[in-house]
């Protein structure tokens, strides 16, 4: 429970209008896009680094848990305050502080929305390449804390690859700056990489410097239809291993296609899976040449290829992919979106295993996702109000994690461990590694106040 005194002190730091203990607010801030739910004692909206620092100092003194939150689009429970305490909402720190065109860098506050930043970059012909699906609403702070990815990650990498420098408030309230403005640096430990993907457990990020990239002027898109999952996997592997660097290499299995067909009124050739490849670049000849090469490789794997000849045809292909989530969401009352990720060479095997798991537990699992980097999104479709089906869905999820690990993959490619996958963490990580992780946590957060209960659980 949060005491009256603490609330008064918080009000003193950020002003009473930026503190709420109202049950209605606490209920709404108890959840993210995962199945987790836990009520904070108080919700706080800081607006400056100094305020964040003062809040953490206070919380550390009183040993009250603090959970940072951006837009709450997290799919793994990262911002769910499992131990109650203070929920720190970063959305009012939403200023783009600088866009440096010469060095291609942007300095932003954590509450800046991904779309807001990319809109601001557009006039300069620049962009921030990692593109989480929630880009219209998710915050840069959240993207950094969760090391978000997206469709383009297959070429451009995830947020990890684009963060240069950070200002972070440590759990003790001390403010640290780390990283460099230069592309190359070997000056001390890479603490930037430590904080990227730390899921709000090590510090609260208050300023972010991001590297930018020139916006590609051309793109070429094609779809390819595979007679079997193994053929689909093979085609992906060939395209990726030939150095063709697609800016998207997506897959939708036949269950996803059936749903999209019904939902968006689109027709697809009879197949087990549809692949989408997009190539971007600065000259048409370059993107076309890479596309032609990919076409040949797909056809050699027995896929039927359709190249988008016009912008409208390219948009149609993407419309099919973007309809995947809504189409599947209409099939059953509830859905669970996983992001188990395997090496590119194991995509076919993983697709086959997901089919087996679906059969084993009698739940519908449709798979789509970022096949090129092995980051699949098996979507488990069920009715959470049916306890038996809910249980089978959870078991299917567990088997998907196990399969990914067995194939040399990871529990999560871009959603984070959070609460949802904490109990599976030791499937992937040995005891020595977990000991090191805990030691790092203890060194920075001696009282374990910052986002406790996450990643490795208790």
């Amino acid at each position, binding site marked *: 429970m949060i005491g009256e005194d603490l609330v008064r002190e918080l009000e003193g730091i950020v002003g009473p209008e930026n503190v*709420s203990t*109202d*049950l*209605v*607010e606490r*209920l*709404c*801030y*108890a*959840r*993210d*896009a995962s199945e987790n739910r836990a009520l904070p004692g108080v*919700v706080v*909206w800081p607006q400056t680094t100094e305020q964040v620092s003062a809040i953490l100092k206070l919380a550390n003194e009183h040993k009250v848990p603090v959970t940072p939150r951006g*837009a*709450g*689009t997290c799919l793994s429970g990262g911002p769910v305050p499992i131990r109650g305490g203070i929920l720190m*909402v970063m*959305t*009012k720190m939403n200023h783009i502080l600088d866009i440096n065109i010469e060095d291609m860098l942007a300095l932003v506050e954590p509450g800046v*929305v991904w*779309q807001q930043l990319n809109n601001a970059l557009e006039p300069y012909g620049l962009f921030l390449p990692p593109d989480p699906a*929630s880009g*219209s*609403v*998710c915050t840069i702070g959240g993207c950094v804390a969760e090391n978000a990815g997206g469709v383009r990650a297959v070429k451009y990498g995830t947020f990890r690859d684009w963060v240069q420098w950070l200002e972070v408030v440590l759990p003790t309230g001390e403010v640290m700056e780390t990283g460099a403005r230069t592309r190359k640096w070997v000056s001390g430990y890479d603490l930037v990489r430590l904080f990227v993907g730390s899921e709000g457990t090590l510090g609260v990020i208050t300023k972010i410097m991001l590297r930018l990239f020139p916006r590609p002027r051309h793109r070429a898109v094609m779809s390819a239809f595979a007679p079997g999952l193994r053929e689909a996997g093979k085609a992906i592997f060939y395209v990726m291993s030939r150095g063709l660097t697609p800016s998207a290499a997506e897959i939708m299995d036949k269950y996803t296609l059936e749903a999209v067909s019904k939902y968006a009124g689109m027709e697809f050739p009879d197949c087990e899976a549809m692949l989408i490849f997009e190539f971007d670049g600065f000259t048409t000849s370059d993107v076309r040449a890479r596309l032609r090469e990919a076409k040949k490789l797909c056809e050699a794997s027995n896929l039927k290829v359709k190249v988008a000849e016009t912008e409208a045809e390219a948009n149609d292909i993407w419309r099919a992919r973007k309809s995947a*989530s*809504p189409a599947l*969401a*209409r099939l059953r*009352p*509830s*859905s669970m*979106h996983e992001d188990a990720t395997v090496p590119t060479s194991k995509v076919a095997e993983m697709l086959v295993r997901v089919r087996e798991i679906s059969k084993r537990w009698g739940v519908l699992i449709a798979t789509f996702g970022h096949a090129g980097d092995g980051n699949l999104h098996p979507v488990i479709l069920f009715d*959470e*109000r049916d306890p038996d089906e809910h249980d089978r869905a959870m078991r299917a999820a567990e088997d998907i994690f196990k399969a990914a690990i067995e194939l040399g993959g990871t529990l999560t490619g871009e959603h984070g461990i959070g609460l949802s996958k904490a109990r599976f963490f030791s499937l992937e990580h040995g005891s020595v590694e977990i000991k090191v992780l805990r030691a790092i946590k203890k060194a920075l957060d001696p009282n374990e106040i910052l986002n406790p209960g996450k990643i490795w659980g208790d």
Partner: protein
Amino acid sequence: MASGLSLPENALREIFRCFRCGYCRSACPTFAIKGSESWNARGRLILARELIEGHVEPDKTILDRIFSCNSCGACEVVCPAVVRVVDALTALKSALVASGVKPPEPIVKIHEAILRHGNPFGRGQYQEGPKEGKGEVLLFPGCVALELEPGLIRAIEAILEAAEVPYSILEGPCCGSPLHNMGFKGDAERLAERLASKIRSSSAEHVITPCPMCLLALRPYLGQRVEHTTTFMRKLMDEGRLVLKRKVGLKATYHDPCVLGRQLGIYEAPRELIWQSGLELLEMPRSRANSACCGYGYLNFMAYPELAREMAKRRILEALEVGVDVLITACPSCLHALSEAAREVARALAVSDVSEVIAELAT
């Protein structure tokens, strides 16, 4: 703990379908102003679940969150789970009212006024029968036009006269549509039924209304016999009965009313009328299905005046960004909202209903 709230299965399905991705944060106009999660569709649906599961009592704060949603439907356009938020929250409001919960005070007053006077403004009864004679067209202006934007009715009359269309006007009773949105489902249906039966007894071939909410309420009863003034005017033009005598050479933008666009799918007719008028049409970044609510729909400006006024002001600022002389809309509530807001923040920006523009050029 169960709440005793009884919602139809289809509404429950919609509420539980929300997987809380938060995409509605980019669209919800009340969230844009208030900034906290409880003011967007995700928050409201979380609260709906908590209410249904009995984890929370329907106190004033929670009722404000639920009832301040005026069903603009912007969230539905961006929702990847395609949750029918408007239907879900309307069903929740109805269930709350049916369970004996008293809605926020201004809504109680609107309800009482409509039941007692046949209109929300509580100023005597409207004429519940066509004023004069028979006509090809029966014009149902709706309460907002009658009370707050009478100039719009004069404009429609001028157009009908210019096109030599015989018409009569029906002032009341209320179409019930605000009450439906506020959770008084039974009363709303009774009113709509009563209005529909009055209209059925008229011999008019077409029933027209400038108010998208009246149109939405009447459609289930009268089908295509009732239509919006914009689609009717376009027909008159196509048939050569309505001829514009001159054109106007200004820059204009068009604000899609939520109900006319997202609910009724009427996007083209008003735009075609604008093109016919000679105005150069520049679109705002948020237009058509992505249009931003003016805040006034379903009498929300009487229930939540501050929120509604702020929404209207923000829309005016968007129109200014486009750099136009005129902001045009096609709904009495939007017209009233945007005119009031423009008077406050952008006096040089003219605000008109598309009917007013056409009337000006046809007479």
